[in-house]
């Protein structure tokens, strides 16, 4: 028996067979390791069905469900194949999408707690200028033909203004405006007119005042002093602004943190930086080539 075994061991053929079996086994084992699994479970199917419903506004029938799952399997296999080939490595779409996702996350994570009254009050005090209203005027005017007529109408109105709406010429814009800031007024009537009114001190009808359109007789009814805003009535707006500010700050902080981890290695650019720049049309080809050369040398 032992003899038989020794003989067998000495037989090259048997070693060849054993080696063959081992190789075969190893190959199967390696293949099995490469075999991947795609799991189709209830949550996945529910997700696919929900997407379908979103598109068609009805539930899929059995055949459509099969097709959905088959489609998912196909996509999954192709995506894995793409990953295996390394296609995701330098794909701009994927890079941007990932960057975008992180930005969304950063923005999402930031604002968790609602601000309390005290925080809002402090924020309001620090940003008063945003909420204060500038000086404004409520004013009326009569549009007239000439400088001379302006003086004449002025005299009439200062004696009796009851019929002011029926004096002068028709005017394309309103005859009367409430609470206009200097900026609004200058956009409406021209800067010269706005300046004249805001420097005006008399409460009577005043003339002549010139605008982009012609001559006017003007009366300022009320001069509303620049007003400091009150906190209480604006609290909702302040809360909105506060949260916006918080989000921006948190985003900036998160960004600074990330940015701080990176050291930049800047290549020297030998290409002239003119207005043409990288974005400049057809010539962009040249600019890019020059810069690429300069960078690869650095």
């Amino acid at each position, binding site marked *: 028996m032992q003899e038989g075994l020794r003989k067998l061991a000495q037989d090259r053929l048997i070693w060849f067979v054993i080696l063959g079996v081992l190789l075969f086994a190893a190959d199967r084992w390696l293949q099995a390791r490469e075999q991947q699994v795609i799991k189709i479970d209830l949550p996945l199917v529910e997700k696919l069905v929900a997407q379908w419903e*979103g598109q068609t506004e009805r539930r899929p029938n059995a055949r459509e469900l099969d097709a959905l799952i088959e489609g998912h399997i196909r996509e999954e296999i192709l995506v894995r194949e793409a990953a295996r080939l390394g296609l995701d490595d330098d*794909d701009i779409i994927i890079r941007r999408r990932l960057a975008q996702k992180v930005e969304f996350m950063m923005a999402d994570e930031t604002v968790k707690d609602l601000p309390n009254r005290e925080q809002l009050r402090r924020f309001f005090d620090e940003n008063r200028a945003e909420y204060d209203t500038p000086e404004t005027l409520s004013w009326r005017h009569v549009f007239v033909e000439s400088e001379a007529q302006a003086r004449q109408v002025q005299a009439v109105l200062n004696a009796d203004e009851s019929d002011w709406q029926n004096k002068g010429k*028709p005017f394309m*814009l309103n005859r009367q405006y409430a609470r206009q800031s200097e900026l609004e007024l200058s956009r409406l009537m021209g800067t010269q007119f706005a300046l004249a009114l805001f420097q005006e001190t008399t409460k009577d009808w005043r003339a002549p005042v010139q*605008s982009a*359109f012609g001559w006017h007789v003007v009366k300022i009814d009320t001069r509303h002093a620049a007003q400091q805003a009150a906190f209480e009535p604006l609290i909702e707006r302040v809360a909105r602004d506060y949260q916006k500010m918080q989000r921006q700050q948190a985003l900036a902080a998160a960004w600074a943190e990330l940015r701080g981890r990176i050291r930049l290695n800047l290549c020297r650019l030998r290409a002239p930086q003119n207005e043409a720049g990288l*974005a*400049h049309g*057809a010539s962009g080809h040249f600019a890019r080539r020059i810069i690429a050369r300069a960078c690869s040398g650095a």
Partner: protein
Amino acid sequence: MKINKKLAALGAAIAISVPQLALAGAEDRRAMFGETHLHTNLSFDAFIFGNRNGPDAAYDFAKGKAITHPLGFDMKIRVPLDFQAVTDHAAYLGMVPAMFDPESAVANHPIAAGLRNAKTAGERRAAFGGLLPYIGQQVEDDLLDMNIVRDTWAEIKASAERNNEPGKFTTFIGYEYTSSQETFENLHRNVIFKGDAPKEPFSRLVSMNPENLWRWMDSLREQGMDSIAIPHNSNGSDGYMFSDKTYDGAEIDKDYAALRMRNEPIVEVSQVKGTSETHPLQSPNDEWAAFEIMPYQIATWNDSKIDGSYVRQAYRRGLEMQAQGKGNPYKFGLISASDTHVSAGAFDEYDYWSKIGAVDGTGRLRGAVRLTWSQRLGAQIFRMQNWWRQVNTPVAQRTGWPGKNPAPGYLQMQWSSWGASGLAGVWAEENTRASIFDAMRRKETFATSGPRLKVRLFGGYGFNDKMLNDPQMVRKAYARGVSMGGDMKARLGRAPDFLLWATQDPGSAPLQRLQMVKGWIDAEGKTHEKVYDAACAGNVPVDATTNRCPDNNAKVDLKSCAYSADTGDGELKAHWQDPDYKPGENAFYYVRVLENPTCRWSTWDAIRANSKPNPSLVATIQERAWSSPIWLEH
């Protein structure tokens, strides 16, 4: 007694809830300016052009805040707007941003590679060009994901609601229906909703035939959702926008006319991609007809047929059709808008950024600034690439190539023929959706080429010269006649009276002349047109034989862009009676008002870049405004 109390309470409630409506009559309407055509990063093309500003940023811009151009500079409007609609392309709404999503099938689409790699202006153009055939040929089923479209649409609606401030600033929910004939013939319109909007926009992917869009709008209206569609860039429609046939080539009939007018009361006559009022070949006796002419079909170098592409001819065609018993499908009012694709309209010549972002964001890219030798070489290579691409494209889908460059030292692109324009003007009681929408529906609107010119027009009988200086002019004019956009019935064979009125933009040049444009149909059924000056700057009378103002010698210094300060008026007014009226002839009348000449954007670009201006581009511009017409009917 009990009932009386209830009535009193009801009366009080009404008085409290709608105080302005109770007080405001037609004479209290005031001119408001707005933008009805604007693309954000949610439009497939705008995103490719580098725009990253969403709808909120677009509203910020309209309210006066600065936002960022794709090339990095600030864009800020000179005077904030009163109203605005964001109108992204419904087809592929939000799709290109979604192509950045590796989970969507869209990312693997053949065109995605071109899109994602596009960096330079040339590559962006190529990417955009690559997308067009897909949109044109309806192979897009494998590209489209309606989930993305619906989500994006919901965000657009939410942004409009967030930014609407009744009384101060009005937003409209809207979108662009980007239809065409077989290839590039522009049949685009913007759909604007009076209030709420449906769950999903009706896009070209559902139907390319605008009649189906109108039927869809009709059905929404029955459900209480009112909307209008505003066509634009008829200049690039290859004659199809105002054709004498329907989309399918059938004869137009009364039903078609009614369907169209129910849904398209106004047209966008001017925007960055040119002005569509009229063409010099159609209006040889109108010395101001050659204004911002954009001769191509949209997104191509292919010529657009003139016949059927311009507004004034459409008005004439409408009179003809009406005389033939087909109804008048072209009885529309006018507005302008920008069609910007960077979420911010460029309305001023001296602060111009065109509209497609990284593709036309500098003076050089627009052909206004001289190229360096290397840029010229690059431009030649680009031309050859384009030529090669065209040769390898089936004839029907070719986007063509430019003709000989008249100024070889400069780029010659489609956007060299564009310009800073325009604004929508409405006469409305208050700054609310309802009030502004109603003004658009009754066509009490006007269009400007950018500046805030204000225009009024009244037609009727029994107007007189004295009314011009009557403080109650507007009230009386409404009482005795109709305002722009209206119809007036001819009386007793008498020539109709008109009151024309315009004021300048305090931030722009003064006015040079106020004109009446008339078109009419004679007893033989032939139409005619004529332009009359009605008032001249400096109180100079109009020459009665030529119907023209004498030259007011307004000048522009092309070195500094300074313009004459001593000539031109702040306002022009006229009482005008039609000297050529013949009883029985139906007609339309609209006002056109011209500013003194100022520098055009191309001249500003050249001066700022210290370059010689491109001699093939017009150096100056006479900014203008157009009223909606009044139609005289017998």
